[in-house]
């Protein structure tokens, strides 16, 4: 009985303190690697036309033709896709104390990737690009970067620094979903950032999801207008 108690006590101490200590040490190193990556990452300019913009005219039924929704193609900045495990971004949330100084985001969401604290889902676009960029992070262990994510309210700003510059998103909506709710990572028109973490705290029973829309940054004017 005493042995089992010590085992559980050790578990709690390990999860709260040991994993966090390792993550914080790791994060210091990853942050300098990310900063280095900013100067090395390949950046290109591509011609971007907002979805739905080409005028489609059906000769048999002109009534169903769609009108153009944007004027002219514009130049979008894109960066190369980082390799798995590469620290490539820093996320900052001014209204959350532990994220005011920033937390490094690595490419990938495997258990190994997420030991660093936050990971970008590789099947989704990078932050600052059109579509829905998804970043996941621990809620209670490994530095718990997303511990206070439930405190975000619509309008709060989220900054993601990448090789392109700082992309600023405004929180739109917060949801609680099942861990299997893959639809939260589906494509969205415009440029979105979706943050996911475990919910409630100290449980992986559900997911807390925060949707935020791009409002400023190197590509904001091109994508959002």
């Amino acid at each position, binding site marked *: 009985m005493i042995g089992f108690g010590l085992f559980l006590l050790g578990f709690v101490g*390990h999860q709260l303190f040991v994993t966090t200590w390792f993550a914080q040490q790791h994060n210091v190193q990853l942050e300098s690697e990310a900063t280095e990556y900013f100067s090395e990452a390949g950046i290109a300019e591509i011609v971007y036309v907002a979805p739905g913009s080409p005028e489609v005219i059906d000769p048999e039924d002109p009534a169903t033709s769609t009108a153009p929704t944007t004027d002219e193609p514009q130049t979008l900045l894109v960066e190369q896709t980082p390799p798995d495990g590469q620290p490539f971004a820093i996320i900052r949330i001014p209204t959350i104390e532990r994220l005011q100084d920033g937390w490094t985001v690595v490419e990938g969401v495997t258990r190994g990737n997420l030991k660093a604290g936050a*990971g970008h*889902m590789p099947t989704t676009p990078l932050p600052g690009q059109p579509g829905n960029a998804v970043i996941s992070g621990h809620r209670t262990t490994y530095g718990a970067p997303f511990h206070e994510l439930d405190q975000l309210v619509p309008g709060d700003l989220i900054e993601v620094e990448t090789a392109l510059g700082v992309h600023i998103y405004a929180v739109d909506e917060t949801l609680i979903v099942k861990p299997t709710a*893959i639809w939260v990572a589906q494509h969205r028109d415009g440029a979105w950032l979706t943050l996911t973490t*475990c919910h409630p705290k*100290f*449980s992986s029973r559900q997911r*807390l999801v925060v949707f935020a829309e791009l409002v400023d940054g190197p590509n904001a004017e091109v994508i959002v207008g």
Partner: protein
Amino acid sequence: MKRLFLSIPGPMPVKVVVAVIAVLILLVTLHFTYEWMGNTFLDTGGGVG
């Protein structure tokens, strides 16, 4: 605990080395066990799908 230590065969330096190795193995095993338990039951990292 003392009895367990004394039951290790060999002279005192050997007992100490064996005990240190045994403790290290125990700590490493505990670390991976705790990691697995944490990742499975407490906080999977927040990914979806």
